[in-house]
């Protein structure tokens, strides 16, 4: 009885977990076409968005752009790059803010704004669904 119930739960958990993982593959990090950055490792992307680094070699200070809390692309992005949940992300930034070591990325209202800001700012870096990428910007990761 118990065994059966537990097996059922595992199956449900697997089905629930499988969905977002498949979708996550579609969120990509982007920069302007004019940007000097051509390729970033997922780790570099994670570090930039978690405030661990603010520039790469031979680039100016990078400006990461975040989507609002609760947007699906944001959740997928942080799950893909660094594997952090919203709560973990909040705890991370709480600690940095409290100890005065950093501020979270600026938040843009939607993907459209993000794309525009990236296209016009060679130091900006953002993320979005792969399908939202157009010619003005370049995918650097994954």
């Amino acid at each position, binding site marked *: 009885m118990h065994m059966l119930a537990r097996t059922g739960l595992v199956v449900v958990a697997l089905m629930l977990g499988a969905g977002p993982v498949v979708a996550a593959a579609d969120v990509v990090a982007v920069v302007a076409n004019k940007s000097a950055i051509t390729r970033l490792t997922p780790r570099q992307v994670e570090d930039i968005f978690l405030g661990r680094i603010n520039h790469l070699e031979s680039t100016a200070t990078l400006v990461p752009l975040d989507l609002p809390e609760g947007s699906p692309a944001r959740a997928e992005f942080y799950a893909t790059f660094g594997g952090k949940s919203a709560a973990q992300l909040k705890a991370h*930034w709480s600690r940095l803010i409290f100890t005065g070591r950093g501020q979270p990325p600026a938040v843009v209202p939607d993907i459209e704004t993000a794309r525009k800001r990236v296209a016009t700012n060679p130091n900006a870096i953002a993320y979005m669904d792969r399908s939202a990428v157009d010619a003005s910007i370049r995918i650097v990761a994954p």
Partner: protein
Amino acid sequence: MTKLSRQRLHVLIEPRVLFAAFTLIVLAVVWGATLYLIDVERANARKAAAVSTSDQVQTYGAQVVRAVREIDLTLKVVKYAFERNEGRIDLATLQDRTLLPSNLVFKVSIADRNGMIVSGMDPALSNNVSYRTYFQQQRQGDALAVSRPQQETDSDEWRLFFTRRLDDESGYFAGVAIIAVGADFFVSGYDVGKLGTEGVLGVIGDDGVFRARRTGDTVVYGEAVDYAKTFPDADSEEGRVTLTENPWDGVSRYTGTQRLYGAPLTVVVGLSQAEQLAETSASARTYLWRAAAATVVLLLVVALLWRMMRQLARARREAVTSEIAHARQVEHLAFHDGLTGLPNRSLFSRMLQQGVQMARRNNRLLAVLFLDLDRFKHINDTLGHEAGDQLLQEVAARLKSCLRDSDSVARLGGDEFVVVLPELADDVYAATVAQKIISAISRPFTLKGLEFRVTGSVGISIHPQDGLDEETLTKNADIAMYKAKAEGKNTFQFYSDTFNAESLERLTLESSLRRALENNEFEIHYQAKSDLKTGQITGMEALLRWQHPDLGTVAPMRFIPVAEQTGLIVPIGRWVLKTVCLQNLAWQKEGLSRLHIAVNLSELQFFDEHLLHDVETILESTGMEADLLEFEITEGMLMRDVQRTLRVLTALKKLGVRIAVDDFGLGYTTLASLRQFPIDTIKIDRSLIRGVTHVADDQALTEAIIAMGKSLSMTVVAQGVENTAQAKILREDACDEIQGFYFDRPVPAAQFAQMLRARAALAPDIGTGSQPVPAKT
């Protein structure tokens, strides 16, 4: 005093004291250093924990103050914007202009005077907050307020609400600006590296309610404590650190607090004592283990050394002991008789000296008892030395059993024992002891499985009446012993002044002589006479020997006078004559050559009226040829009573026996007077022969005697010839025969017969020889 302290010093340098002191000092140093080190490390760790706490309180305080000020500043910005725009405000615009802090952490909202949320970015907040404490609070006051931790719903996070009052243009209450912050934001700076897993980081309000408190990964919200009691020092300028047991979880911590400026909050930082001192405790444990190990090693080493030293000391002690034992043994051997273990003559002499001194000093009597066994020699001869030794040992044991501890007994040699009784009250006691000894000795002995009886004679001398010194006492006890023997043995005798040592000895000899014949104690020894020209044995002289059972071999010159005086010489002489004749015949029968045999006649025998009869009887009864028998008489006897002598000699000659004059040349007889006697042989005295090689007178006299003897047709015999030089001169002088120790010692019959047989085998060669063959000795 100085002696005492020196003794103490000696005790100090004794090895075991030194060892113990050394060990204690080393142990004291090791443990002292260890405990000191631990103490220092503990103190350092405590100090470090306190300093760390103090540092972190300051840092943490600064962080909280900054956060609170930023929140307050935001509230003020919102208030300003609200009041400038008469209540119309768009928070999104402020956000866009980065006038608001990160929305991720700080959720800003605005409620109107009715508590309705009119603007905000906090989806979790309910639409109406009028029932909230902070809303009520801001209606009355105008200051930053920090709410207690609150949850909108049960599953929501715990949050703090920072609020400020909003006014309208007239100054009336127009609403509240709210910033909601997760309570754990204020403890997000918890660093395990600095605080450990048991440290504490917290913010508490003036109301005594913790806004948040974190230990490790656990955060507690809204817990109330007695503020004043828990943080008595919180108001002080510089946050002090105290080691206290925190009331909320019972953990002892170095706890530091600091009240914030401009907000009703106090920060709390605590470092767990156990955790902070764990490292020190661990190293303290290590130090203690090391000290314990060092102690064990040291004790083992010391024990080992101690044991080795003890063994060395014991070996040394044993060596010394065995040396002493050896020395004692050597001393014992020097002063004791090996057979019986009794003191020997020298120790006895010393003991007696001491005893005499003691007796003199204490004015007491002292007795010396001399014991001589009566039949010891007999036992020794018949049973052998082993049995004799066993007997002596048994006698020694019996003697000891008769004595008190203060008495002493010694063996002087042979069968002579001596006892000293010191400190006598009465000489009766000496008699008692003597009787006891005699009784003890006369009990039967078992030797070689046979029972024997032995008797003893005891002589007693008493100090001081019988002598004042050791020598006299010993001598007199000896004399008394002789007297006891003379009295018939198995008895004791006190010394008396009337005793004379010589007469006592004579008494002894006399009594012994009487039994000597019966006991067959006499023996005949034979000494050969040789022809000087041919070297052949021509005859022999019979010599009487006495083996006394106690005295051993007694010389003829000692007992012959006694025998003469007592008349015992006559029966003894008879026995000799008979024995000699039988022996001579036995040898002849054996096929050995016919030999003359000379027998000495003493004066008493010579003048004995039965002599002729006895000789005749013996010759007849034995069948001995008379002409082979020669009687030797001394020169002195010849002239004693010439008529009588002549008569006896003539009678003897009639029997056919030969007559010889012994010890001739001593000057009593004129040569001429010899003519009247029927003498066959003269024997030149040994004293003349001794001088014949180098004393002119002796040589001349010897020559004259030989010449005279020849002229009277007598055989001349030289007595006591001891070397070839003497023999050579005598031969030149035409002496007939020689007799002497050098060539032939007197020997018992069996040995003499052996010699005769040996000569007989060589006889043909000897016929031409000019040198006599020396007999085997």
